[in-house]
């Protein structure tokens, strides 16, 4: 994800794919943790009822919050931000338009996990935009859910989006479907919808497991244009192989910001980019310290390295 304006270094880095290359290089250079795991803890495990072992997560939250507030204020002061193009998200609108032309429905699946999974929440954020566009185009939207809570929230999301688009009639209760809590029974149910109701577009956004390829291949056979998005690394290759467009990891989480263009949401995407920059610096520092420790095995370097591990 990228943003414009503000920090020129971050702007340069996020504009192109350099950041990804750097992240991969840094991760490749990073020494295995067992090389680093020799020294004893520097910080205590607990301090005044605070779990110090969770300090890295706390620091990530504080950094993100700080970056977000700063960027939010910048944006309020009139700074504009631009997101790099995401072909996968552009394809969503195209997919709905195609369904409209063909007079067939759009099928949306917000993953197979329950509402306590952050990927499901991200999927529902995207559903809101998909439902809005579908309502604008007057195209029926089928939502298939594996969990009943997700179904209930999906109903609210589609109802609200249809109302916001000025077409409350586009919310069709019979198109909001709970199929089964069982993974493969759900898969079989979705396959049935694909083959019988022939949706022109299938949009998979959320957490998926082994059913990913079964769904995507059946969608391919039914002739649908398919857009997938997940942060589940093990399933990404299947979606990449079988779908027309795939949102990978962070792209999937940024999709709703990209679709909404809401500056308050877009600011959070740039804040996430800044946080990534901060972690890249920490990775490089860690690699440098570990290399120094390997070359000059001194207690001070080991302590410094351990401290870095405990803080980040």
């Amino acid at each position, binding site marked *: 994800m990228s943003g414009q304006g503000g920090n020129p270094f971050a702007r340069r880095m996020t504009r192109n794919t350099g950041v990804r290359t750097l992240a991969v290089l840094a991760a490749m250079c990073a020494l295995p943790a067992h090389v680093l795991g020799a020294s004893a803890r520097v910080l205590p495990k607990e301090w005044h009822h605070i779990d110090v072992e969770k300090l890295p997560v706390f620091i990530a939250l504080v950094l993100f919050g700080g970056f977000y507030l700063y960027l939010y204020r910048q944006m309020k002061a009139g700074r504009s931000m631009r997101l790099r193009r995401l072909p996968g998200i552009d394809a969503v609108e195209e997919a709905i338009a195609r369904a409209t032309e063909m007079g067939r429905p759009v099928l949306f699946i917000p993953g197979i*996990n329950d509402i306590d999974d952050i990927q499901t929440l991200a999927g529902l954020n995207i559903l809101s935009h998909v439902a809005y566009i579908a309502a604008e185009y007057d195209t029926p939207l089928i939502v298939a859910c594996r969990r009943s809570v997700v179904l209930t929230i999906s109903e609210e999301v589609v109802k609200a989006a249809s109302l916001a688009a000025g077409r409350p009639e586009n919310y069709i209760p019979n198109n909001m479907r709970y199929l089964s809590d069982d993974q493969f029974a759900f898969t079989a149910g979705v396959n049935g919808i694909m083959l019988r109701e022939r949706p022109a577009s299938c949009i998979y956004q959320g957490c998926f*497991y*082994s059913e990913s390829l079964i769904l995507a291949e059946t969608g391919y056979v039914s002739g649908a244009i398919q857009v997938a998005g997940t942060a589940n690394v093990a399933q990404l290759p299947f979606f990449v192989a079988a779908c027309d467009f795939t949102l990978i990891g962070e792209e999937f989480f940024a999709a709703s910001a990209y679709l909404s263009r809401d500056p308050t949401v877009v600011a959070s995407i740039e804040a996430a980019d800044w946080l990534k920059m901060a972690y890249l610096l920490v990775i490089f520092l860690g690699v440098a310290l570990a290399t120094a420790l390997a070359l000059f095995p001194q207690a001070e370097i080991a302590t410094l390295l351990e401290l870095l591990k405990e803080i980040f």
Partner: protein
Amino acid sequence: MTERNDKVGIWERWLSAFVSLDRRWIFLIVASVVVFFLIVPVSMPVTVSEQVRAMYETIEALPAGARVHLSIDYGPGSEAELWPQHIAILRQLLEKDCKVICSSLWTDGPPMIEKAFTVVVGQLEKEGKKKVRGVDYVNLGFKAGDRVAITKIGSSFKETFPTDYQGNPTSALPIMQGWDTYRDIDLLITIAVGDPGAVEYIQQAQSRYNIPMVAGVTAVISPQLYPYYQSRNLRGFLGGLAGAAEYEKLVGRPGYATRGMFIQSAVHLLIVGLVLAGNVAQFALWSMRRKRGERL
């Protein structure tokens, strides 16, 4: 000249048909290869990978009487890949006189635990090694709650599982005497297909209690475990049927996975062959169209 054009046309039609081959032909070829090698078994030498050997050595290093929590987090859907791992590991543990405490985070896991106990305990009994339920092994059954369940198990086995799968009070079982938390466990093993599975156990149990852990997972999940193996969160792991075959070689009992290796090899070769042939056909087709001056 016309004849030559016709010939080119036929070739192009053939190549075009192959490039967009109906997937049902591919299904038929795959099924035929599998069935053929099921009927005509062929054996193959298996090469053991580093992480499989590391897992074997971790279990081998356990002393007699060591407590092992074996979490069976898969159902019948992934039985083909994970059952051979399950059997090989369980047998190794019981042969080494370890105390095997089984549970599951998947609703369909407990029947898999029972099935494996029936097979392995039966085999050992035939060889004169008697293993007693509740003394040498136990099936604590299913616990709902995914990640929360893992933390609950870690803090108290007896509170999390008041009764075992047979309905006996857990606190009365000889195998459960004198310990209750992950701090008393010598090795944590999960045989898992997805979420909750190996990654969740690493996050909620291994890193929290710093206990040695190994895992057996499906081939799809195994790439995810390499970072954890490098960081020593995992002492070793098995990936899919190939991992199981390597393990069977190490424990010296070639079984279902070893027999399946040639079938898997043949299907892998078939897919590679199809992919390469598809590419050759695609290039030939492009070259023909380019020669005709068509834009690709």
